[in-house]
């Protein structure tokens, strides 16, 4: 167990370190001067002295006038204190605060979408492997869904259920005429706004899981242990039960591998629906060239994905006895 988690933790630490370093490197080694870029964007309606003062201020802020190793150390110092700088777009608010305000919305979309699609997709995939007609209809649907760009499915759902049928609102996280509060009215409004972005995430993921499960089950049904059970006359019920359980394991690993893609999917989906999660914040940061915010979100997404990966690792150890056995120092 220690070896397994030790390795995982080493990978994650290294990933975080490399990602943070990339995050630090990009603005410094891109061609062009980031401060100049910032200044030119603000327009030149101030006097040369004021411009000089402003540019000095930014050089200081970025720490660009210090030796490079000092800059790097400062960066880590700030990072470890949770200081990701201040956001221009959010009127000088600390980047951490801006992100934290958006996170609940993103999680409210992601967590139910991931868990429900994983559950439903696996159940459906297992069912499809058993019934020919379901397999023949589900397989093409699954492939179409998994090949659909997240944002486009979002646009289509917004157009059909929002614009045309007027069943659900398709912009913002809650009605602009409401104030966030613990009232039934606000809650139902929140759910109505949540529905379409959730659905588009759910559907695309569902297709992927269902196909994955179907393929895994077929593979497991051909495995030696399945053939042995059949040779000893075990009923299909038992053979399928074993195959299903074992096919679940790669699906858990698959979840970890897919997290990056899923998070990317939620980012673009939020943009479609102007859903005020991290994705929309990122979009605004890009549009307003708010680099502190942009880099902060990047780091935040990495940390989130790493944490989720770690959760999946723990779940895997609970479900797959082989990992535990290896950890006990068995003959693995």
């Amino acid at each position, binding site marked *: 167990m220690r070896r397994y988690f030790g390795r995982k933790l080493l*990978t*994650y630490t*290294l*990933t975080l370190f*490399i990602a943070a370093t990339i*995050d630090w490197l990009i*603005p410094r080694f*891109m*061609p*062009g*001067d*980031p401060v100049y*870029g910032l200044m030119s964007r603000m327009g030149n309606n101030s006097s040369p002295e004021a411009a000089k003062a402003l540019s000095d201020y930014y050089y200081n802020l970025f720490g660009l006038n210090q030796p490079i190793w000092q800059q790097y150390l400062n960066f880590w110092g700030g990072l470890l204190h949770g200081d990701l700088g201040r956001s221009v777009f959010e009127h000088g608010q600390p980047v951490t605060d801006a992100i934290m305000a958006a996170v609940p919305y993103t999680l409210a979309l992601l967590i139910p979408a991931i868990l429900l699609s994983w559950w439903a997709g696996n159940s459906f995939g297992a069912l499809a492997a058993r019934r020919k007609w379901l397999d023949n209809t589900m397989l*093409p649907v*699954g*492939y179409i869904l*998994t*090949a*659909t*760009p*997240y*944002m*486009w499915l979002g*646009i*289509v759902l*917004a*157009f059909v259920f929002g*614009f*045309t049928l007027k069943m659900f609102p*398709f912009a913002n996280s809650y009605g602009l005429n409401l104030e966030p509060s613990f009232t039934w009215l606000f809650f139902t409004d929140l759910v109505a706004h949540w529905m379409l972005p959730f659905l588009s995430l759910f559907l695309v993921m569902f297709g*992927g*899981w269902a*196909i*994955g*499960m179907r*393929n*895994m089950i077929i593979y497991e049904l051909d495995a030696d242990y399945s053939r042995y059970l059949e040779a000893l006359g075990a009923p299909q019920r038992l053979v399928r039960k074993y195959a299903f359980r074992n096919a679940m394991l790669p699906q858990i690993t*698959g*979840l970890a*591998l*897919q997290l*990056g*893609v899923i*998070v*990317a*999917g939620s*980012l673009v989906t939020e*943009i*479609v629906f102007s859903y005020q999660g991290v994705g929309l914040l990122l*979009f605004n940061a*890009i549009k307003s*060239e708010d*680099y502190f915010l*942009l*880099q902060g979100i*990047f780091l935040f*997404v*990495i940390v989130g*994905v790493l944490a989720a*990966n770690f959760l999946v690792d723990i779940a895997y150890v609970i479900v797959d006895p082989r990992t535990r056995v290896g950890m006990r120092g068995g003959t693995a």
Partner: protein
Amino acid sequence: MSSVIASEPKAEQAPQSPGAAAAVPTPKPRGEFLYFALRSRKFLIASTILLILVGIAVLGPIIDSTNPNAQDGLMNQGPSLKAGYWMGSTSFGEDVFSQFANGLRATFFVGLLGGGLAALVGMAIGFTAGYRGGWIDEILNMVTNVFLVIPTLALLIVIASYLQRSWPEARGILFEAIFVGLTSWPWAARAIRAQTFTLRSRDFIDLAKLSGRRGWKIILQEIAPNMSSYLFMTFILLFGGAILIAASLDFIGLGPTNGMSLGLMMYNSLNYGAALFLGLWWWFIPPGIGIMATVGALYVMNVGLDEIFNPKLREI
């Protein structure tokens, strides 16, 4: 794309089905491929769809040479043959068909180049790690795992948003394809490494080693040809993946500034054209269908090829 990982072909497994293997004379490989390919419904449907899409991408801009970015036509025209916009026009008066055909071109370009580049990097790392083993494998494996966890799109967003200010010339489709390719190789490297591992201990590799051939020659002459079908299928999946990533990037507004792409069409329709609120469906529906059809056909083709190459999956 989870299906992608899960459906990685389990090809080239050592044990054949008992008994029959030795006695069955296998037809010539090429003949066999054609025989199964022409009987695989999945393969045939997918390649037909792909051919049609390639046709539109190649011929479309030639037949209809309207500049996709020319804002000089009628605005907000629905699809009709009369007005001369058979796929409609945007709220800036651009021709949707011209945008679609040019965008499809860009999509295939990004897929081919990005997917190809990712396949090359994946092969270089996967072969080296799987063939050499030892500490080289440990290090490459660690690097692969690190890049497997970093969300590709997030990384690309940061890079692209800096580029758009400091080096605008790099915001072309060529650079986009290169960046996508350089960030989407990790799972391919891992899969190829695993395959190489199983091949490494086979007799014919030992024989090649004994005859004193160089490592990279053995990889190129013995290992790669033995898993060529697997490599081709990996490329197909990378092809589809690159298209999806590039589309997301375009949709965020970080795509090429000087051309047209399907993702950019969606971006423009939503952010500048308010197409969703005006109901200009002919503007945002086609690009999504283009991507979906291309990537879906690639995925289905992959499954079809899997059944063609892997006798265990064939239905007789």
